[in-house]
């Protein structure tokens, strides 16, 4: 089970190739092999959402995914989110994703440990559902625990981001 296998995929817009053990999780691969430490390990059992990343644009908890199971796929972490947004919207670097920008403006991060996963879950939500109601935002983030904020400013940040994303010209400034 733990023999190494070749893994090739796209991470944050770049082709990546490594040898990984069969049992290595995507989270271990991102943090350990690729040194992308922006995605945090908090529970390792899928119950807190801190390790949420996008696989082909869909949020998943990286601790539950085997690295080999994303062979050939497109993975985006918090580090790659600005680049993903720039590609999708035409915004110029160093523009942040509107959710990141919303977090800055509304105070969505306190200790920040849940923040990367929260932002990725929100970004994935808005890609699938560009005009969510407040209830839909809450539901979209229901798998992301936060101990600091009570979610209030996080939800506001996502609302602000959604509004901005619906007005593309301003968004790509």
């Amino acid at each position, binding site marked *: 089970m733990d023999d190494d296998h070749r893994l090739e995929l796209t991470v944050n817009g770049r082709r990546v190739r490594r040898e990984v053990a069969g049992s290595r999780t995507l989270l271990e691969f991102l*943090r350990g092999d690729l040194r*992308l*430490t*922006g*995605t*945090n*390990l*908090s*529970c*390792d*059992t899928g*119950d*807190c959402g*801190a390790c949420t990343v996008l696989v082909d644009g869909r949020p998943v908890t990286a601790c539950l995914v085997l690295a080999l199971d994303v062979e050939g796929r497109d993975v985006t*972490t*918090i*580090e790659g989110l*600005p680049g993903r947004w720039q590609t999708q919207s035409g915004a110029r670097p160093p523009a*942040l994703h509107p959710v*990141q920008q919303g*977090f*800055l*403006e*509304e*105070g*969505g*991060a*306190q*200790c*920040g*440990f*849940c*923040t*990367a996963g929260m*932002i990725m879950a929100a970004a994935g939500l808005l890609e699938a559902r560009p005009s969510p109601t407040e*209830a839909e*935002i*809450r*539901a979209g*983030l*229901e*798998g*992301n*625990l*936060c*101990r*600091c*904020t*009570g*979610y*209030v*400013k*996080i*939800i506001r940040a996502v609302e602000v981001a959604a509004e901005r994303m619906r007005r593309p010209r301003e968004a790509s400034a």
Partner: protein
Amino acid sequence: MSRPVDSAVPRAAGGEAVEAAGPGAPARPFRVIGTRVAKLDAVEKVTGAVQYLPDLEVPGMVWGKILRTRVPHARIVRIDTSRAESLPGVLGVVTGRNVEQRPFGYARDHVALKGDVVRCIRDEVAAVAAETEEIAAEACRLIEVDYEELPAVFDPTEALRPEAPRIHPQFPGNRVNFAYTFTAGDVARAFREADLVVEGTYRLNYVTTACLGTMAAIAQWDPRGNLTMWSTTQIPFLYQKDLAEALGISGDRIRVLQPPVGGNFGRGLDLYPIDIIAALLARHVGRPVKIVFDREEEFVASPTREPCVFTLRTAARADGTLLARDARVLIDNGAYVSWGSTTPYVMMTTLAGFYRCPSIRFDTAIVYTNNVYSGSMRGYGNLESTFAIEAQMDELAERLGLDRVEIRRRNANRPGDVTPQGLRITSCGFTECLDAVARDIRRPVDRPLRPGWTRGIGYAGMFHVGGGARVYRSDGCGAIVKLDDFGKVTLITGASEIGQGSETVLAMIVAEELGVPFGRVEVVNNDTAVKPWDVGVHASRTTFIAGNAALLAARDVKAQLLRLAGSQLEEPAEGLDLEDGHVHVKAAPQRRIPYEKVVRAGHFREDGRILIGQAFYDPPTQMLDKDFRGNVSVTYAFAAQAALVEVEEATGKIEVLRVASAHDVGRALNPVGCEGQIEGGIHMGLGYCLTEELRLRDGRVLNPGFLDYKLLTAPDMPEILITLIETVDEAGPFGAKGLGEAGTIPISAAVANAVKDATGVRLTELPMTPERVYRALRARKG
């Protein structure tokens, strides 16, 4: 005096003119104070650039893993680490039998690695250092330990019985050697003469901080025997001292670094075995060692809030004025003394100080058991005390036929009051807080009531320290402000940032005082080798104490700057001011220089000088004396909350629709930060109230995971309406008071009172799970 401010109205960067005494506000609008700014580290956090302790690597670092006991109370008969030591990749193993240790902890009843007896399921019996985390974990599984189980006790009432097993040989009767006993006035007479006496017993259970970032440490020794620790501590200087004693070295050999931390909420308020073990292991194997708790370990081994049974009687007159309160608190201390054992300090100050009540009796029994032991957790005893007091305020109101808000107004603390312990109330906006929540909780609700559900409203107030807390002999904080050649202002503060935004508000204070743009201020706060002393983050003290220190240091460097500029401009210093990054002549503002030019000109010359300001602010307060009297804080914080709830009779489910939360903050220096602390505090308090319980059976944690230790999720949170009341405290920096714990403290009481209002039933045990509520509703019917 107070001016209610609705924080829903954004405050423009012009503020309002304020005249206040004390080190507080200048008589001009604020440019920075009161504006909505992003946290200093927000960009790093939203981009993933921030490096938490688990992200850090030190050259040569190896991984440590702790082996814990399999049973809560036992003698260790045999421990054999040979198989672990010979596993490839293992560098070494430490146990209580192969390293030198000294007892640590407030009562010196604890050693890091237990070599003889284990007393709770958390107990550490060995630790392994290995090249990877997996190998270290595997090695732990290869350590053989034989235990001879000892009779154990898991209930404090049982533990007090003479025949109960003794947890520590030196503490007969299993009583922790602290007495928190206070009397004032004439309690017996007050109860005799009262028109009404109400009584109740309240059970508050284990909860835990459940931070998203777990406890962690990296220990590194240098060839000279100096130790560097990277830690999740929130008391770096006390930690430095305590760790030195535990290791048998002098404190000057230890340097403590504090990387950004994934939450704390009081968890980091003591020295814990993880810290000592990391250091012992690193010394043993000669390599830096990193230990990071996994999630299960975090639930089992990080400190909890103290469980207690709180028995209270309140005596009152027919018009609702309080005459006396008599409380007895039984605390399950767990196996060792940590800060949970000292929470009666705050239970007492609330019992004796919240609302005017002339006669007081307070007593505790703090009892050792073989359960896990408690530390400080946000609110630190005040949640429990407030829960009992506010339940009885409602009961008094009901039985006396009084309005529930009115009875609170009638007994409210007022500026100038001195509590029976000698706490001096200065600024006090409590009644304004009550008025605000009473108004906001009654705003229209657009959700219709569903069949089978009833709705209710409940109120609760809060009284807490707001200007530091002299729990330790020192309540001081040092600050240094340095101006550089390029206009950067660096605040080096003893205060720690634990995610709550303290460094941001300190930067705002410095920017405001110096008249420089907020973006020019940087804060250094994470290295004991560099920063001046501070007692630590606790008691909601940082904005007040560290803020005053920063303010005074900024004022010091500003005076130096103006003197220097005066000699450069050939004007007397009194005729100059600093505004918008420029020194200008007051009488002729067009004559101005950027301050960085003043700084450069000051030292690129013969007989040059640089500009560094410093201050150590230690407030004019006292520790409580042996009779528990003294004024422990410069000022006190007040708040009120109201909750609108719905209860489903058929299942016992509670939904909280709305929380109104009003806080006397003195002045809202950082409104985003204030709101964030309140919102997060409400989340934590609602968890305590409704869904969170660390379940122990026979000393073992049954639910060490996020699946069954239930933090509220985003859909669970109610609408939150916040009002910030500004009483402009005369002693606070720009009038501010502490706020960090306030959102958490009264909310459980408000919800319990709302459930009573909705159903007629009072729940006296937390959390109010659907099952508990259902049982209570059925008992009422039957």
